[in-house]
């Protein structure tokens, strides 16, 4: 039969290619002919046949004469009949989804105008063969989840291309990759004002459990291998541990069926930054699929446009390799392992610094060598119940100098977790689990010293958790979770979570509420780079207790589908977090020190955020978000009175937008992206410091053009930081005297104003609110090869 190719769309797959390319069942045929003569009425005849598989009739198979209009399908008995066929020779083609197409020559003439065929087939077992159903597979789909999940696809991140996923997150409302250090440019991810450690980072649902710099967890996965990034703001499931109260970032990699065979993305900027992403999909065997990714970032030109004698941005040389392997198993059980290795060499400081000055007091620089490896995996046990073992291990080695202050740290984490997924009745979806995390941490600071000798910190953290997702009514869902952990240093930790979701019947309105608590044991050296800058001495006034927080979120999502096919989505969230024992770095009491203590009082982070998403049929897309928040502490002033203070380095307002317009005729897209930040309180150095206490309103805006070609090549280029915004050049205090050699201190260690130092300042790079990188152009090329 000739398939009538009448539609106007571009691609019609020949049936054979579909079946062959998926290596479906092969049919072994043995044909037996039975010829029956019946009186012919005209110049036509007919064919009747039976098709069987393993002796059983094959229903819904197509029987057709190739390149003709004659065709039919088999019935429940596997029987087909093609009638009124003009005399002639035909190629009879039998096909069915899941079976190899077979063909047979048939001649219909006056002599043989009726033919009856019996086609017997055998079936070989393969991945698509019928298998016993376990009946226990039952994850809920994302939007059904009572936990609010935001989805971002690579298309979104490509609107403002940056070297790694960490920086990409700046395009998401409520998520801020915060720069913590003016010289070394390291940072952490803040979700709705909560610090990095409260955010869990996962790859394909497998957590990268890490204390030392989660930032690296987001580097090395080429965007071509990312299917989507899911972001949960607010308390996530207890499954992800007692820390994930701020939110979680889950990077979903492409399935073998949708990943490109090869993808390359090379980008350079007029600042001589150079970035390469490479992704490759390959088979390691009949049943083993592998996704490999490589990221290389290089910036090696010391640049000082603001003339303060310091590099404007940190010089970096970073390579990261990622490989994920998935195994095909019986009953499609899960087994996947991923590994990653990151090496990074970064330094920032006085522009004429070279490695020979490392650690010395002639020229100042912050120089960090990082080596990090990670392994993550998930294995579903080969039993009827759905029990999954997840595991993760990582090692992190940091060798660094902040001026003359060395900081060398090693961290090793091992993590294992069993979860048992069980449906009870129609409305209960139960998840039980147990986890163990072991953390080894050692550095050269007093944090891991005891009575003058080195005492690495070793913490075991066993835990159990239970979660029940209850479908109260079709429109109402409730998720209850409870987790208990035992910290070998700090004792019992209990973290309850509650999530509730209501969906309107037409599914266009969704309301969610969540509440939960979290705790974390802070290691200021691993989390706070300011603690390491040699510029300030670190002081602990007490043994730090774990920080505890309660967080509540309300989220409302509304979708509009307009008559002309346009889409408008609104997503509004209100959040509130209350902290006890908050660990607060005190920069202000003494400009030469950072004093860490548990807050005697409480702290609050609260705010609202709104996201708007427009997709118009004319090719215009707009996403915009704004967050207004207030983060403050109420501290005991010593007399029992609580005094309210605004948190340093935290803005009260942020806005983010991206506007894209496509010209489909010429395959050109234009993107305009930007951020707007409100003032934030900054750490000034005493009452004489002339620098403003609050940062100005500032904005970063970027524009990009992307041209696509039919052969898989995409060329893009544009301008970043169009407004050429950079902080004032005095952001680093006394940049000309980084070792405070010309600073006079009095007997109590306080700075004395002198002619050379009228404002009584010391060298200090912690007054940082925006990157020092001004306007720059960029150009890049992407290539994706699909098989």
């Amino acid at each position, binding site marked *: 039969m000739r398939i009538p190719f009448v539609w106007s769309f571009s*691609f019609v797959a020949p049936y054979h290619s579909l079946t062959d390319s998926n290596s479906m069942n092969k049919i072994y045929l043995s044909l037996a002919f039975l010829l029956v003569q019946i009186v012919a009425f005209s110049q036509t005849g007919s064919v009747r046949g039976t098709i069987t598989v393993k002796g059983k009739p094959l229903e819904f198979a197509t029987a057709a004469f190739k390149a003709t209009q004659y065709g039919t399908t088999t019935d429940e008995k596997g029987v087909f009949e093609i009638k009124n066929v003009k005399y002639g020779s035909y190629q009879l083609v039998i096909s069915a989804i899941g079976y190899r197409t077979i063909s047979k020559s048939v001649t219909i003439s006056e002599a043989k105008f009726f033919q009856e065929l019996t086609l017997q087939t055998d079936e070989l077992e393969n991945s698509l063969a019928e*298998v016993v159903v376990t009946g226990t597979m039952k994850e809920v789909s994302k939007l059904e989840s009572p936990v609010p999940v935001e989805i971002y696809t690579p298309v979104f991140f490509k609107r403002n291309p940056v070297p790694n996923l960490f920086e990409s997150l700046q395009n998401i409302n409520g998520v801020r990759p915060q720069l913590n250090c003016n010289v070394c440019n390291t940072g952490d991810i803040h979700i709705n004002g909560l610090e990095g450690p409260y955010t869990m980072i996962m790859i394909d649902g497998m957590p990268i459990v890490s204390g030392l710099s989660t930032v690296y967890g987001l580097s090395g996965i080429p965007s071509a291998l990312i299917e989507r990034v899911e972001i949960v703001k607010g308390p996530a499931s207890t499954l992800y541990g007692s820390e994930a109260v701020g939110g979680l970032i889950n990077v979903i990699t492409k399935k073998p069926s949708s990943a490109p065979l090869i993808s390359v993305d090379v980008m350079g900027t007029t600042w001589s930054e150079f970035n390469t992403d490479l992704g490759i999909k390959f088979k390691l065997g009949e049943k083993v699929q592998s996704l490999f990714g490589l990221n290389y970032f290089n910036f090696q030109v010391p640049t000082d446009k603001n003339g303060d004698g310091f590099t404007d941005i940190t010089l970096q040389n970073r390579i990261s390799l990622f490989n994920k392997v998935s195994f095909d198993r019986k009953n499609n059980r899960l087994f996947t392992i991923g590994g990653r290795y990151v090496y990074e060499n970064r330094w920032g400081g006085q522009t004429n610094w070279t490695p020979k000055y490392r650690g010395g007091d002639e020229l100042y620089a912050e120089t960090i060598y990082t080596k990090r490896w990670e392994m993550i995996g998930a294995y579903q046990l080969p039993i009827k119940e759905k029990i999954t073992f997840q595991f993760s291990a990582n090692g992190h080695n940091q060798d660094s100098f902040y001026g003359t202050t060395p900081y060398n740290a090693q961290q090793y984490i091992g993590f294992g977790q069993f979860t048992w997924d069980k449906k009870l009745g129609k409305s209960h979806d139960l998840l039980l689990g147990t986890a163990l995390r072991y953390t080894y941490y050692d550095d050269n600071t007093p944090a891991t010293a005891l009575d003058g000798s080195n005492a690495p910190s070793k913490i075991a953290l066993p835990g159990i958790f239970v979660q029940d997702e209850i479908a109260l009514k079709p429109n109402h869902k409730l998720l209850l979770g409870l987790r208990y952990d035992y910290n070998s240093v700090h004792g019992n930790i209990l973290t309850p979570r509650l999530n509730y979701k209501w969906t309107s019947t037409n599914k266009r309105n969704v309301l969610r509420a969540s509440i939960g608590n979290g705790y974390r044991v802070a290691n200021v050296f691993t989390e706070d780079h300011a603690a390491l800058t040699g510029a300030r001495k670190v002081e602990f006034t007490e043994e730090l207790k774990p920080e505890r927080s309660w967080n509540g979120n309300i989220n409302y999502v509304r979708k509009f589908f307009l008559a002309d096919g346009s889409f408008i989505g609104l997503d509004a969230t209100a959040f509130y977090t209350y902290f006890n024992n908050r660990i607060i770095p005190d920069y202000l009491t003494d400009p030469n020190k950072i004093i860490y203590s548990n807050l005697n009082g409480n702290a609050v982070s609260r705010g609202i955020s709104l996201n708007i998403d427009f997709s118009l*049929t004319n090719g215009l897309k707009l996403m915009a978000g704004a967050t207004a928040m207030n983060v403050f502490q109420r501290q005991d002033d010593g007399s029992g009175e609580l005094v309210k203070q605004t948190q340093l380095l935290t803005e009260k307002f942020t806005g983010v937008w991206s506007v894209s317009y496509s010209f489909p005729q010429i395959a050109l897209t234009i993107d305009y992206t930007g951020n707007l930040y409100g003032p934030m309180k900054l750490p000034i150095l005493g009452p004489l410091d002339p620098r403003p206490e609050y940062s100005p309103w500032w904005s970063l805006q970027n524009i990009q053009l992307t041209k696509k070609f039919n052969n898989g090549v995409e060329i893009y280029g544009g301008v970043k930081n169009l407004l050429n915004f950079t902080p004032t050049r005095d952001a680093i205090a006394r940049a000309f005297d980084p070792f405070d050699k010309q600073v006079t201190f009095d007997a109590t260690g306080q700075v004395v104003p002198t002619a050379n130092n009228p404002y009584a300042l010391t060298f200090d790079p912690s007054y940082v609110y925006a990157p020092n990188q001004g306007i720059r152009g960029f150009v890049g090329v992407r290539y994706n090869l699909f098989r």
Partner: protein
Amino acid sequence: MKKVTLSLLCLLFALGGTYSQAQITNWTAFENLNDSLRKERRPLLVFIHTDWCKYCKMMEIKTFANPQLAKVLNQQYYCLHLDAEDTRTLSFLNKKYKFKPSGVETGVHELAELLGNDKGKLTYPTTVFFDQNLQLQGRIVGVIDRQRLQAIVAK
């Protein structure tokens, strides 16, 4: 701030009026397809989507919910709705297909991969057409607007 939040939510609810529901495309459940085909052979339309794909949602609402188009589809076609991340085992033309996990809580359904894979890529939404002899006719990747789908089913 609470007042602002509350009034914002009220505003959103107010905006969220209900749409009038005329005839929309009836989705044939996979488990009922065999019986339907035994009763009457018809061409098939398989709409492959995921619940996180907003363009899929757009097509559901703007294309499949169109009364005129839905009428034609309901009379002449069997339309199937395939969530590519459905974790249930589905039976299609007497063969069973399962969900294939690629990580924890993520994966793709074998049937979506089989039917929707276009040049090595599975993109959402993808609409797959079969003629009444159950032979694959082709697939369209991306949103199909009402006019285009009407033109296709009219032929």
